[in-house]
């Protein structure tokens, strides 16, 4: 057993760190310094800089243009980007549909889509949830039925299609066999009629409507399909095999979903706030034992999560399947990120009332806290709500019986 990273991995960490300092443009660095929110254009600028360096897709194998790093280097690279507060990259192409195409796509599909994802020339979004298919995703009703000319005609509505307003493509779960739709007259298992389809958002009959999130930012969207015609070659995997693909996606790189680096940045930020806010007794809040104790409690939770993450990572480095410790990462990681923002709000006190005001109303590093606090309510919901995560752990890890 060894706690330390190898000297080679430590050297890689230093290299990444110094490269980021040199490569991050000054205006983005200034925003990172105060943890301001980045817009999509800024994220894409950073995407292209990372792409030039060859680091935009740490998880991708070299045959697809990835850097071919081992599991620990992939982790270090991602963690250093998080710790430096660089603009977050859209995960839908790089982390979701890209790896899925590598696993299930045809050679033509790989060649058509992967290089453009890598270069940031095409931006993707995800079409999974529907108004009546959230946690019960397999109940989805958007249909894709072949017409006389062999094209799929798509009808229905997708929701929480995050950043669809900036995207060029959407990957969708659609029902190619409408007879499997749940409800009266539904035949067979509802999972079996689902297929995985790639849809160009410029297709006639596709309409994207952005929605504001609780954080006051336009992240979510609803996407409507009305007789949208999609070429049959856009089907990934076999017709009716979409559910298998959807499940495979959940297994990718669990060490990255704990968001430890992100939470560590929030902890650093809330300490900075506690060092600036003054209590009624004239002391800085960071000197108040009660506040210190609350911060320490959060740091301890984060440390445990980080250690669980390291255990998972060390297993991945040795090429092992994720152990039981991996399954807690999303659950606890999302809770801790929320708790970090909750504590940051408490430490801001009356200043936590601020909402997109002019500079100077609150300190620059406080400005985005209320918005981020509100937005992070989503972390325990997206990617499978924490209650669903618990159902999965109860069933597959603890082996508890189903009703």
């Amino acid at each position, binding site marked *: 057993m060894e706690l330390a990273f190898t000297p080679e991995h430590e050297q890689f960490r230093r290299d990444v760190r110094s490269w980021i300092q040199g490569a991050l443009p000054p205006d983005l660095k200034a925003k990172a310094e105060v943890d301001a929110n980045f817009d999509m254009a800024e994220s894409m600028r950073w995407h292209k800089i990372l792409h030039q360096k060859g680091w935009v897709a740490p998880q991708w194998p070299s045959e697809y243009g990835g850097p071919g790093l081992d599991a*620990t280097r992939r982790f270090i690279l991602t963690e250093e980007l998080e710790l430096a507060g660089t603009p977050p990259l859209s995960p839908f192409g790089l982390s979701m549909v890209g790896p899925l195409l590598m696993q299930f796509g045809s050679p033509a599909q790989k060649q058509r889509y992967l290089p453009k994802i890598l270069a940031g020339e095409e931006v993707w979004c995800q079409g999974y949830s529907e108004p009546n298919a959230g946690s019960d995703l397999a109940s989805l009703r958007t249909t894709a039925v072949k017409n006389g000319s062999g094209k799929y005609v798509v009808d229905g509505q997708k929701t929480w299609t995050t950043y669809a307003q900036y995207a060029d493509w959407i990957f969708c779960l659609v029902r190619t066999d409408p007879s499997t739709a749940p409800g009266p007259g539904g035949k067979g298992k509802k999972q079996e009629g689902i297929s995985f389809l790639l849809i160009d958002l410029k297709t006639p009959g596709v309409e994207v409507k952005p929605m504001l999130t609780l954080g006051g930012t336009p992240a979510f969207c609803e996407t409507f399909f009305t007789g949208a015609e999609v070429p049959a070659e856009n089907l990934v995997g076999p017709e009716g095999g979409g559910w298998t693909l959807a499940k495979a996606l959940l297994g990718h790189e669990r060490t990255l979903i704990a968001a430890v680096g992100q939470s560590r940045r929030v902890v650093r930020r809330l300490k900075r706030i506690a060092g600036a806010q003054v209590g009624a007794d004239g002391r800085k809040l960071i000197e108040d034992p009660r506040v*210190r104790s609350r911060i320490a409690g959060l740091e301890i939770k984060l440390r445990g999560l980080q*250690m669980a993450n390291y255990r998972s990572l060390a297993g991945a480095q040795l090429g092992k399947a994720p152990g039981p410790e991996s399954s807690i990462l999303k659950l606890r990681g999302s809770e801790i990120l929320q708790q970090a923002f909750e504590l940051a709000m408490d430490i801001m006190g009356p200043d936590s009332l601020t909402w997109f005001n002019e500079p100077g109303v609150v300190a620059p590093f406080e400005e985005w806290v209320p918005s981020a606090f509100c937005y992070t309510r989503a972390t325990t919901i997206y990617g499978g709500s924490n209650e669903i995560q618990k159902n999965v752990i109860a069933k597959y890890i603890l082996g508890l019986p189903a009703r």
Partner: protein
Amino acid sequence: MNFDLSSDQKLLVDTATSFAKKSSPVSRARKLRSDPLGFEPKMWKQMAELGWLGLCVPEADGGFGARFIDLALVLEQLGTTLVPEPILATCVLGGTALARAGSAEQRGRWLAPLAAGELHAALAWAERGGRYDPAGCAARAEKSAGGHRISGEKVWVQGGHAAQLFLVTARTAGRPGEASGVSLFAIDRDAPGVEVQPVETMDGRRAAMVRLGGVEVGADRMLGGEGTAAALVEDVLDAGAAAACAESSGMAQAVLAMTVDYLKTREQFGVKIGTFQTLQHRAVEMFVETELCRSHAIEASLRIDEGGADERRQAVSAAMVQLATGGRGVVRTAIQLHGGIGCTDEHDVGLYFKRMQALGALLGDEDHHLARFAALSQPPGEPL
């Protein structure tokens, strides 16, 4: 970074696992609750033969010179069935104090017999009013003709009821609360003026209250530098706390398994109660906290002999906070999920519940470790 077991570690863990299962099931811990010694000398001998007692004793002093994590892995397995032999008291607290502070002569005199299972040495540091700070020591050591004359009272001395040797903190200078001025002395149980009152603890184990009324010790009985023992004892208690966390990690795993098993067999309303989502989610919370206990315990144990003092203290305090919150949460939820039977003395879950409670009270509670962690926490503005 690597958390796989080496082949030596695998062998240790396999041996400890089979010992816990075959030679010391929970029923044994239950039976020994009413025994005045609380453990069995023949088992202690067996543990010496297995090499566990001398695992962390330096090779030059008759031990194996292994890393602390190796002993922690053994303790984790012994925790699964609440094995009652006092490895934590004798080997981790007593043994570490002797190994760290003893001169070559002192180590030779006491560590080899300790590793061989022939000597129990108990660390007597806690006092009424001192809470968890070794600098709270008020016992006095006055200079005398032959060395020192020691007076004071030590409480809840782990393994004290069985010890032949006490490692006692006493002030050669300063006042309670001051870090300097505390010294460490080795005192024989049968020395004139030593009064040992065996006591029971809430987890069914034994300890002792030790009163020292002008006990005369020779100059060869001081361990380590005069006045420097508070820091030393804090280090030794870190090893004790890491051991407690390892033990509690094994306990949490056992209690989780026991509870999941109960959920799969107990029926109410005509179905297995494990089909109820409310109970499933509580069991998952137990699972999450168990994994976190294990993660914290591994880090704490690795840091006992790796890296700097601040990192070690933070890791140990973090693990103790996890024991006090998550670990205790696991055993408390386990009782709730067992229902009425979990509240009886006859069900094993209560034994784990009590032991988890006692471990936190022994080696520092949540407030103590939160404050210690917070004091070492990075100030605002430090790079990540």
